[in-house]
């Protein structure tokens, strides 16, 4: 037991040095070949399978599972990747229990779906770990497309465009490509630098130039891109973090969950990442869960996740909620923050319980806190963008914006869930529309 376990305040090294590797190991260790065959044998090869319908990228799941079952995992990987070039990452981070695996008929039959996500990882890992790239670039078309954002939407769009023979330049504000895959996903979901390895593998298609440290609005402008390229695809993330709207939220120790998650991912040694003894996370989505669970894994003694509505309204899946609970995170529902207390640094945070209509009940809750993570959503930043719908760029079914020659997809665009897999689908579909527009 580390001496620092009970130490108040924000400090690194709350656990024994040897404990961190285990804490942040793969959430779902990869299936070995035997496990994969056993899992694959359970697939019924359904007609017009519900799992395909449930997949935002329409991967032919029964086919790839049959390919695994018959000893051809690389063919399975090609089936997956031809629909979803980031099939490897999606296998790790997709909320499969809400998508393909929820639709699996064996979920209806026995409450135990085929392990589609883990099988997808088995196949894509098998191919990618050999360094094989199964697609070839078409004859160059001479057309040039700019992609803004090297996240799932942008990279998916770039890969498809490059495959069709176009020349693509991808701009990203951050030093590394990958977007949320690199900066925004819990460490235990994508271990061993997988996000970077996947980007490197994806780039093997050729025809894609990556310009990191190139931010829209600062280093490049939409006007400029529109003038320099035959088409533009916008696939930025949501840069702004919503405020709590509680008194005292500017106190030291009140942080954005996305920054915490990014710092953890980029930390060479997670043991060096400081964490509070009493941590409160505010929000009900995947980001909130990722932050709360990782705070616990870093050795925080008490981690409480507070969400303003009931559990059923949380964006985080039941699986994620259970994961958090199993790691010792306490989940409090129906409470909104009203004040952050403390002298300079946060010491306590005060909530009011609210009813189903978000009306205050007068019942209060005070939680000790030396660190508070805000995870109540992000917003699109930037001006001179195409027309918005709500707070996102308005797009049609193939990603066309209000401006001719500009497409958008992923978190910055309207419609769809803010999932990696949705972003990949939108990037891919926009690429096909751009291609048809440029050569059609």
């Amino acid at each position: 037991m580390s001496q620092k376990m009970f130490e108040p305040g924000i400090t690194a090294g709350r656990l024994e040095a040897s404990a961190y590797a285990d804490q942040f190991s793969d959430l779902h260790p990869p299936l070995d070949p035997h496990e994969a065959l056993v899992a694959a044998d359970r697939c019924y090869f359904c007609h017009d399978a519900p799992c395909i319908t449930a997949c935002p990228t329409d991967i032919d799941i029964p086919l790839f599972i049959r390919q695994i079952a018959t000893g051809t995992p690389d063919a399975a990987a090609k089936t997956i990747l031809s629909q979803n070039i980031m099939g490897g990452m999606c296998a790790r981070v997709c909320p499969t229990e809400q998508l393909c695996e929820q639709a699996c008929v064996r979920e209806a039959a026995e409450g135990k779906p085929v392990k589609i996500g883990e099988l997808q990882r088995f196949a894509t890992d098998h191919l990618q770990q050999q360094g094989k790239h199964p697609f070839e670039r078409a004859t160059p078309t001479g057309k040039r497309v700019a992609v803004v954002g090297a996240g799932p939407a942008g990279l998916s769009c770039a890969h498809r465009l490059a495959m069709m023979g176009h020349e693509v330049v991808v701009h990203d504000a951050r030093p590394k490509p990958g977007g949320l895959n690199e900066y925004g996903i819990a460490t235990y979901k994508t271990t061993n630098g997988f996000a970077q390895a996947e980007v490197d593998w994806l780039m093997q298609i050729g025809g894609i130039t990556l310009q990191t440290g190139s931010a829209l609005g600062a280093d490049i402008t939409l006007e400029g891109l529109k003038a320099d390229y035959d088409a533009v695809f916008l696939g930025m993330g949501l840069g702004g973090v919503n405020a709590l709207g509680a008194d005292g939220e500017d106190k030291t120790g009140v942080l954005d969950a996305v920054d915490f998650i990014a710092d953890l991912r980029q930390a060479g040694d997670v043991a060096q990442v400081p964490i509070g003894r009493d941590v409160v996370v505010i929000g009900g989505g995947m980001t909130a869960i990722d932050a709360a669970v990782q705070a616990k894994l870093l050795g925080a003694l008490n981690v409480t996740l507070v969400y303003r509505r009931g559990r059923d309204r949380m964006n985080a899946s039941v699986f994620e909620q259970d994961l958090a609970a199993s790691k010792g995170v306490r989940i409090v529902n129906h409470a909104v923050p009203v004040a952050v207390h403390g002298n300079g640094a946060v010491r306590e945070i005060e909530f009011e319980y609210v009813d189903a209509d978000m009306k205050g009940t007068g019942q209060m809750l005070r939680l000790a806190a030396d660190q508070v993570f805000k995870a109540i959503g992000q917003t699109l930043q930037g001006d001179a963008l195409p027309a918005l719908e709500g707070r996102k760029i308005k797009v049609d079914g193939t990603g066309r914006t209000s401006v001719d020659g500009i497409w958008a997809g992923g978190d910055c665009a309207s419609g769809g869930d803010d999932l990696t897999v949705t972003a990949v689908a939108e990037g891919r579909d926009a690429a096909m529309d751009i291609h048809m527009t440029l050569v059609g």
Partner: protein
Amino acid sequence: MADLRSEFVGIKSPNPFWLASAPPTDKEYNVRRAFEAGWGGVVWKTLGIDPPVVNVNGPRYGAIYGADRRLLGLNNIELITDRPLALNLQEIKSVKRDYPDRAMVVSLMVPCEEEPWKFILPLVEETGADGVELNFGCPHGMSERGMGAAVGQVPEYIEMVTRWVKASTRMPVIVKLTPNIADIRKPAEAAQRGGADAVSLINTINSITSVDLDLFAPEPTIDGKGAHGGYCGPAVKPIALNMVAEIARDPGLSQIPISGIGGVTTWRDAAEFMALGAGNVQVCTAAMTYGFKIVEEMISGLSEYMDGKGMTSVDELVRKAVPNVTDWNQLNLNYIAKAKINEDLCISCGRCFAACEDTSHQAIAMSEDRTFSVIDEECVACNLCVNVCPVENCITMEAMTPGTTDPRTGKVVEADYANWTTHPNNPAATAAE
């Protein structure tokens, strides 16, 4: 608990489950373990004339699998016992002395001459064994030497050898038949003519289970080559059941006792063989897959089933289904059924739809929300949807009531029985009256 005691050609055993002549019954050690586990009897692995045969020193078995590597079929190229005759005889005697209530039958295969049979039979008798089984079935290795299936494929030889054996022993003689022939009744008739007390079937089926696609050689592969072997296990059960039934329902053969062999894996398989005419069953592959302990399930399962049917002796089950085995041209063409899908049990996999739409009669409808229903106007009751459905009893075949109208044909379902022999479309039809 039902009384499972069995008497087969005068040989008594506490239950009708014997281990077939095969690797599990090659040695005293194994057979003692089998008897301790509860097997009713064994047929000791086939003895021959010294010097013993030799086996290959590479793999002897090949397999095919179902889902989750469930072994469905096994193929072997092992020969008869490769141990000296005297050693086997001594062990048989020792085991029989210690387990007098169990059936001890000895399988034999010697050259197709009278002298070797006259030589070996008294030696077997001396062990106290209850009977002999003549191995006319082995499809590999021995048949090339003029034994095993080489005899079993020529009815005249079967008759001749059986006659020699009957003349040289007081023990009951069971003739084991090879399925590698066109009509199983011919060798059975020959065995009967030769005086056999019973037949046992089936021996293994000539087979190549798989091909190594790197070596381009059949498996099991011995130094780059493979030879056909004998196929057994659950996959051969339907073939064996048919052959047992063919003998059981043949008027000329209906009196000869049958020991049923071929893929018996559970009590249910055993019950099916017995219902089709087998007086008892012999098991091998199931024991080789799961060990001897499976006999406990066979005993409890058959007993529970018999209790449920009010049967007090296994003889009540034997031949119970034989009267219902008939020829196709005797089937009632006025019997009309329709598939029915139980929506509460349906898991919406759509396999019935794919099967019917792609390969059958387009008689299943699929709605937007994946509800599957039978189109009675198209359904011919082929049963394929039942067979491909992963949920037991989700799809059933429901007989139409006579007097109602079949929406497929627009004709009223007749109550009377009518078969192909009287059907107007049959050029050779005989008048109905």
